[in-house]
C-alpha cells in the first residue's frame, strides 16, 4: 500500500469519507442502541441534543435507525462481495486450470448469467426471501460472481501458460504453490479494485430493493426502506428523508472516489 499522503486528493477524500461512514456504522449502534422502540407521543419530534436527527412518524430514534441501517448495509454488502469474489476466483482458476469440458460448461453458465442484469437476479431471490437475510445474500452474491470468474479465468489462462509456471511445475511444485506464488500476486490488485466497485453495487442493490419495498422488511431499518417510509412526511420533517439519502450518497461517493478516476490520463 502506498501511504495515504502520496495519493491523489480524490482518493484521500474517498478514504476519509469511507472511514467516517464506517465509524458511524460501528460506533453508532453502540451509542444509540434502541432502533425499534416506539414512543408514539413523541412522533416527528424535532432534532435535539439527545436525538440529533429527531424522531420519526412512530416516535423511533432516527439516528439509531440510521446507524443500524448503515451497519446492516455495510456488513451484508461486504459479505456478498467477499463470497462472490471467493466463488468467482475459485471457479475462474478451476476453469483455466482444467480447460476442456469444465471450462466450456462454466463459461456457458457465466454467459447465461451475464445476460441477466444483476438486479433481476436479486429481484427473483427477493421474491423467495420474504424479508430474510439469507436468500437476499445468496441472490446478491450470485449476481456478482461472474465478473470475478471472467477476470480470473482470463488472467489465469495467460499466467498458467507462461514459462514461469512451467518452470515451477518442472521443479515439482504443486498447485498450492503455483496459486500462491504465481497467480495470487497478479490477481490481488485487480480483485481489490473490483471489490470496491462490487461493494458499491451491492449497497445500491440492497437499498434499491428496500426502496421499492421487496428487500429487507420493516421494522428492520434499512436505508432504502427508511426513505420510502419518510417520503409522506417530507414537508413536516425533511431530515427523515435527507439523512438516509446523505448516508447512502456519501458511502457510494467514497467507494467511487477510491478507484483511480482517470482511465487513461
Amino acid at each position, binding site marked *: 500500500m502506498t501511504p495515504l499522503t502520496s495519493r491523489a486528493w480524490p482518493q484521500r477524500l474517498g478514504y476519509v469519507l469511507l472511514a467516517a461512514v464506517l465509524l458511524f456504522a460501528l460506533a453508532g449502534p453502540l451509542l444509540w442502541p434502541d432502533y425499534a422502540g416506539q414512543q408514539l407521543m413523541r412522533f416527528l419530534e424535532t432534532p435535539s441534543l439527545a436525538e440529533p436527527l429527531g424522531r420519526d412518524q412512530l416516535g423511533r430514534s432516527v439516528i439509531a435507525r440510521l446507524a443500524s441501517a448503515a451497519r446492516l448495509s455495510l456488513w451484508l454488502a461486504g459479505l456478498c462481495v467477499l463470497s462472490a469474489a471467493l466463488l468467482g476466483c475459485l471457479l475462474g482458476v478451476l476453469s483455466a486450470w482444467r480447460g476442456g469440458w469444465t471450462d466450456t460448461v462454466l463459461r456457458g453458465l457465466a454467459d447465461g448469467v451475464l*445476460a*441477466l442484469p*444483476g438486479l*433481476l437476479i436479486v*429481484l427473483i431471490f427477493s421474491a423467495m426471501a420474504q424479508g430474510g437475510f439469507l436468500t437476499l445474500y445468496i441472490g446478491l452474491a450470485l449476481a456478482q460472481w461472474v465478473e470475478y470468474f471472467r477476470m480470473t479465468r482470463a488472467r489465469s489462462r495467460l499466467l498458467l501458460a507462461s514459462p514461469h509456471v512451467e518452470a515451477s511445475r518442472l521443479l515439482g511444485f504443486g498447485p498450492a504453490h503455483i496459486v500462491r506464488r504465481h497467480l495470487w500476486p497478479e490477481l490481488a490488485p485487480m480483485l481489490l479494485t473490483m471489490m470496491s466497485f462490487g461493494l458499491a453495487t451491492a449497497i445500491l442493490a440492497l437499498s434499491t430493493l428496500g426502496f421499492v419495498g421487496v428487500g429487507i422488511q420493516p421494522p428492520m431499518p434499512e436505508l432504502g426502506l427508511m426513505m420510502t417510509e419518510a417520503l409522506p412526511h417530507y414537508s413536516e420533517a425533511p431530515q427523515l428523508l435527507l439523512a438516509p439519502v446523505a448516508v447512502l450518497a456519501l458511502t*457510494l*461517493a467514497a467507494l467511487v472516489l477510491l478507484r483511480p478516476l482517470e482511465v*487513461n*490520463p
Partner: protein
Amino acid sequence: MDRARQRALARICGQRLLQAAIVSLLVAALCFLLVQQLPGDMAFRIAAGRYGYDYVDAAAADAVRQELGLARPAWQQFAGWLGQLAQLQLGQSLVSGGAVLAEIAHHLGATLQLAAASVALALGVGLPLGLASGLAPGGWADRLTLGYSVLLRALPPFLLGLMLILALSVQLGWAPAAGHGEGGNLLLPALTLGLGLSGLTARIVRDSVLAVVRADYYRFARSKGLAPWRVFLRHGLRNIGVTVVAYAGVQLILLIEGVVVVESLFAWPGVGHALVHAIFWRDVPMIQGCTLLLAWLFVLMNTATDLLCLAIDPRGPAES
C-alpha cells in the same frame, strides 16, 4: 460480403442465441425453485382456484395432484415446466387471471418508449460533454465532466428520481410526479434514467476520443497538414464510434436495471413495474414472463451492438 465477414456474423448470432437459451434455462430454473419453496400445498391452492375455497377437500386436492402430476419427483416436474416454456406457454397471471404473454405485450410498449427517450437524452447530453472533454483533456470541460460523472455515479437512479420529484414536481410544480398517458408524464422518468446514463456515456466518449486523438495515425494525419475537422471526420469518427458502441453493452445493464427502478418509482406501466408488482404478490408466471422478456431484450440489444460494431469496423472484434 466476403467470407470472413459472413463467418463473423454467424459467430455473433450463434453465440447470442446460445446465450439466450442458457439465460432462459436459468430463469426457468430460478422460477421453478421459487414455486417449490412457496409455503403451503400447491395441490390445495390450485384446487381452491378451480372450485372455490368452500368446495375444496383432501379428495379434490388429491385429484388435482394426480392430474397435474404434482407428486412426481421434482426433476420430472421441472422437465414439464421447461416443455411448456419451449412452446412459449407462459401461463396465466395468478393475480389478474390474464394470459402472461398478452399482459407483457401490453407493458412492453411503455417500457420501450421510456428506454428510447432516456437513451436519446443520455446521448444528447453525454456525446457533446465527452467530445469536448476528450478533445481538450485537463480543460474546464474535462473537469466538469469528471465531476458530473462522479456525482451521478454516487446518485443511484432512485435517489436521482427522488430529487427530481422533490425539485421539479413538489417545489416548482413543472411536471407531474407520476402517471401515464398525458404529455408531461414521460418527462421525469426519462430525465431520471437519461441523466443517470449520461454520466457514464460522457466518460466513455471522453476516453475513446482521447485514445484516438493520441494515436499515431491521428497525429500523422494532423502533421501532414489536414484540417482538424477533416482529420476528425476521416480518421477519428469511425474509430471513436467502435469503442463507444462496444461499451454500450455495459450501459445496457444500467438501462435495464434503471428501467425496473424508475418505472416502479414513477408508476410507469412498463415491464419493470409489472415485475416488481409480481414479486409483491408472488405471481410466479408473471415474474418468469417479465424476467425472460427483459433478459431477451438485453440479449437482443447486445446482438445489435455486436452487429453495429462489425458494421463500423470491418476488421471485426479483436480475438481475445
